[in-house]
């Protein structure tokens, strides 16, 4: 349910035409209101959302490649870059859309326990094999990333340098990383065997028995329906009435 709403929300955002800053702003305000209701400080959400920033670089060239009124020109001698208004608007649209989308996804994670997320996926007909793999993966992420950070720490502990000695080559370092990956693989592979035996010992024979996710029922469908209607209305308003530069 929340998954559907979140994906719907992001989809609606991405359908918005270039320059719909007001609509994006409205969507963001709605999100912030929701997050207040769920008692996640907006600060936490905003902080989590900055992961999208590095990607901004990918959109920047657009600033210069759209035709239109020039804002300014940077002269690099050999060639000059001209930033244009439509370019600027396009870039900003992308950045805002992506920033608000990331916050929507963040909110889904902050308000939903992993366990319920998995139930959600089962309802969405994600194959059981994948649901089972993802829950196990999630469980062992902490264990294996713990192992990999201890390995990196052990490497750091031996990464001494004598004053004046030259730095080890990048190639050598990359192959050390390769060795560490190989070592971690063997540890993980053996772990998977032990986990399998532990599962077997408790009656596992190839099928994961779990409590069935409680069925969605009428209220669930009604909720999804109303979210869909709301998003469609939002979309319509954004296209037809809200001013864009």
């Amino acid at each position, binding site marked *: 349910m929340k998954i559907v709403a979140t994906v719907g929300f992001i989809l609606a955002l991405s359908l918005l035409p270039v320059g719909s800053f007001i609509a994006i702003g409205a969507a963001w305000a709605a999100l912030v209101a929701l997050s207040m209701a769920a008692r996640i400080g907006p600060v936490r959400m905003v902080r989590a959302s900055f992961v999208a920033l590095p990607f901004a670089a990918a*959109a920047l*060239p657009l600033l210069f490649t759209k035709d239109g009124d020039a804002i300014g020109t940077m002269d690099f001698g050999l060639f000059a870059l001209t930033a244009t208004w439509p370019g600027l608007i396009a870039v900003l649209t992308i950045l805002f859309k992506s920033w608000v989308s990331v916050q929507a996804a963040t909110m889904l994670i902050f308000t939903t326990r992993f366990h319920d997320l998995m139930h959600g996926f089962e309802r969405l007909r994600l194959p059981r094999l994948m649901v089972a793999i993802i829950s196990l993966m999630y469980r062992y992420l902490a264990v294996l990333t713990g192992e990999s950070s201890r390995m990196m720490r052990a490497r750091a502990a031996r990464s001494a340098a004598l004053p004046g000695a030259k730095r080890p080559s990048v190639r050598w370092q990359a192959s050390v990383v390769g060795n560490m990956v190989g070592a971690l693989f063997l540890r993980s592979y053996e772990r998977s065997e032990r986990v399998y035996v532990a599962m077997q010992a408790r009656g596992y024979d190839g099928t994961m028995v779990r409590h069935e996710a409680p069925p969605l029922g009428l209220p669930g469908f009604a909720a999804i329906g109303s979210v869909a209607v709301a998003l469609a209305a939002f979309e319509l308003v954004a296209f037809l009435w809200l001013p864009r530069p």
Partner: protein
Amino acid sequence: MVTPPFLLHAPDGFFSTPVALAMWAATIAVLAISLRKAGEDLDERAVPLMGVMAAFIFAAQMFNFQIPGGTSGHLLGGVLAGVLLGPWAGTIVMACVVGVQGLVFQDGGLVSMGANIFNMGIVGTLGGFALYRIIAAALGGELKGRLPAAAIAAWVSVEAAAVLAAFQLALSDTTSLGAALVAMAGWHALIGIGEAVITVAALSFIAASRADLLEMRHMRPSRPRTALSGELP
């Protein structure tokens, strides 16, 4: 700060809706095939094996090394997953990795996830593995031939993912094709070298310690060695 291969984890908003949905459709189709194919040659060990292996790929991506200039390089893992787990299971595992990264760690968006899985999981693993097989066969199929095959496949898989992402960005009108190609493909040509070195080192490490695990396409239970099962023959 900027860990380059993760530029392949596009957040939402960078792909236009039609591009994102088309990539989702392609991804779902390929995953459905992979699930069926993987189901054919994996037994009841599949769940624990693939679950732990997905966590492994994720954890292995954490190992990094300093590149002069302040950034750091690390593994992406598509070809490695394909070689170790077989192409179909490897594809599923990579899809789970990219999926969890997007869903739980905001490393890549939800609507754009279809494209991200396609670029890294499917092209990287299925495509990378196919290339690996072809080259390895051409080189005679021995371990000596398989390592260079893995190296080439690893480099190509990263480069191909980057080029594909560049095309998707251009199609989405997010950026111009030329700029995207130069930025993504150029940068990832370097990243790909790191990927190749790491993949080869990892495979030769495994060959030195547990050659049996490289022999089989899908794995059977072998000797579990707990932290305490001491003296080996």
